[in-house]
């Protein structure tokens, strides 16, 4: 086993495995955020691979891995959109919860417990590598990003999302979401582990990086939206050169 798994972080999420698919449970904020971030994923992937933006399975023929897949909140939609999907997570409890849910939904998803580093040492490569809401939880962001980039096939795409290290993010993600609104259990995020867009750009040195693309929350309307505001949550997109270009 390699080093980027933070065992305390894994234990924290393992204890919550049963709550992944409870829309009113500990992961309710991710369910709220999901339609907006999924819309970003569809748009970005369809554009990069020049797919027609129509129909229910635009990702047909593409392979995708969801790093830190948790209960499969993003993994399942990626499979429904037609990709051949692998879900990877360090917590066996999450993999068990995700596998059980996918089976109930009738979705074939290759769920594996393990680390990006171990998988990067094999010859497994994917057209799309997702690392959503994960870099703020790993022990060593550079080692993690190196492994994740290795997993991207030539011409492929890596999409990262995370919480920015700003006061606004701190107010929302840590103080409000954890302590006041009780959306997520206390201690889900440590402020010091949050990552800024520039730090992330540096860690994705092997890719042609675009972004950040903001994902912001309006506490009055209770709605997330995509836009220029990167002070809370943001995406970075990295493209790997194809061999011909």
């Amino acid at each position, binding site marked *: 086993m390699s080093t980027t798994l933070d065992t305390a972080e894994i234990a924290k999420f393992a204890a919550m495995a049963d709550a992944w698919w409870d829309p009113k449970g500990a992961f309710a904020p991710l*369910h709220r955020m999901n339609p907006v971030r999924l819309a970003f994923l569809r748009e970005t992937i369809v554009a990069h691979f020049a797919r027609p933006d129509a*129909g229910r399975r635009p990702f047909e023929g593409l392979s995708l891995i969801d790093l830190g897949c948790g209960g499969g909140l993003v993994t399942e939609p*990626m499979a429904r959109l037609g990709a051949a999907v692998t879900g990877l997570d360090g917590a066996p409890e999450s993999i068990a919860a995700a596998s059980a849910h996918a089976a109930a939904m*009738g979705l074939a998803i290759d769920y594996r417990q393990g680390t990006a580093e171990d998988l990067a040492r094999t010859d497994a490569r994917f057209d799309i590598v997702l690392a959503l809401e994960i870099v703020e939880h790993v022990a060593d962001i550079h080692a993690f990003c190196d492994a994740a980039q290795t997993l991207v096939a030539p011409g492929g795409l890596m999409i990262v999302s995370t919480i920015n290290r700003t006061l606004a993010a701190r107010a929302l993600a840590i103080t409000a979401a954890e302590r006041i609104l009780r959306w997520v259990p206390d201690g889900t995020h440590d402020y010091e582990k949050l990552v800024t867009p520039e730090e992330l750009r540096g860690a994705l040195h092997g890719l042609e990086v675009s972004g950040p693309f903001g994902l912001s929350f309006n506490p009055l309307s209770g709605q997330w939206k995509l836009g220029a505001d990167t002070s809370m949550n943001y995406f970075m997109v990295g493209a790997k050169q194809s061999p011909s270009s």
Partner: protein
Amino acid sequence: MVTNPEVAARDADVIIAGGGMTGLTLALALAQAGLSVIAADAEVASAQAAPTYDGRSSAIAYASFRMWAALGLADALMPHAQRIEKILVTDGRVRGGASLLSLVFDRRELDDRAGGEALGYMLENRHIRATLAAAAAKQSALTLIAPVAVTGYAADAGGVTVTLADGRTLRAGLVVGAEGRRSTIRAAAGIRTTGWKYDQTAVVCTVAHQKPHDGVAHEYFLPSGPFAMLPLTQNRCNIVWTERPAIADALKKMSDADFMAELSARFGAHLGAVSLAGPRFAYPLSLQIAEKFIAPRMALIGDAAHGVHPIAGQGLNVGLRDVAALAESIVDAVRVGLDVGDGEALARYQRWRRFDTTSMALVMDVFNRVFSNDFPVLRQLRGRGMAVVDAIGPARRFFMREAAGGSGDLPKLLKGEALAA
């Protein structure tokens, strides 16, 4: 390979209980957006389109009509649609004539958002039903099951199992209750309703008259309740005559000649000789709102969610707004890979509709309560109120747009835009 053989395969993405006007409009909207749909109804669609099944007509707001146009139904509906050019609302007294103060809604006062469109269209429900049934029969992604009622459903993590009266079960991602006020799906979800019955019954019939109505709708507020003359095609009007239940019962049962004599006292002489052009129907009035519009893998639309007082013809329009909002919520979720029946999508639908339907029902209720009495002081007050509203252009235009369904956060279908997954 996407399916898991251990999981019961879905017969459709969505099962709709109820194949009436809102149910079939939703079925068409979802099927055209790329979803598979089953709609089950206790009555076959052709029976619902018979002249004896539903004598009502509906004032279709232009936003509602735009949705039907986006679904490709405009050509079939247009020959039966009477443009409403003007609505005259009058505080009236039987045989005493109308009071001088009245409220006029004129389409020419709508701003350019209406683009020269009518305030709305009057359409006989039977024509709407026949058009929807014909379109549904041609839609390959849509299966109609009739005459079989839906008797219940059970939701689980992987989907919903719907039970039919003939013992069959069907599997889907979402079930929609569109079977009207006595919704079986709503009862199966354990959702209660609040509301009350009015001491009023609407007598509805169609009359032919000698002179053209010029697209003018009249609504008289009489002490017993509103009396409306709504213009139809070919020199005909739909009459909605609200009375106390005992009087309404007598009106429904009396001879045609006696009925016409009573009617003439209210109808006035401006349209010339008047004759009955179809059977009389009676509909008791009540207001009913479900405490919730959604449950896991279940949504309510139309009268199953809210039955409003049918004063300004808003009932069907409110139901069609449900259709547009629910269809867009579902299609947007499916488009990004979420399951049909996704809880966030249903929550979005409920947020979108809950305020609108509650406020519309209550406005109509207050409207009716204020106007349905004969206290002179109140009469004077409401007369002044109408005059004030009439004098203030912007307020009146806003009310017109609201009545026509043209303002607020409109779902795409109500703007005439098609949906695609």
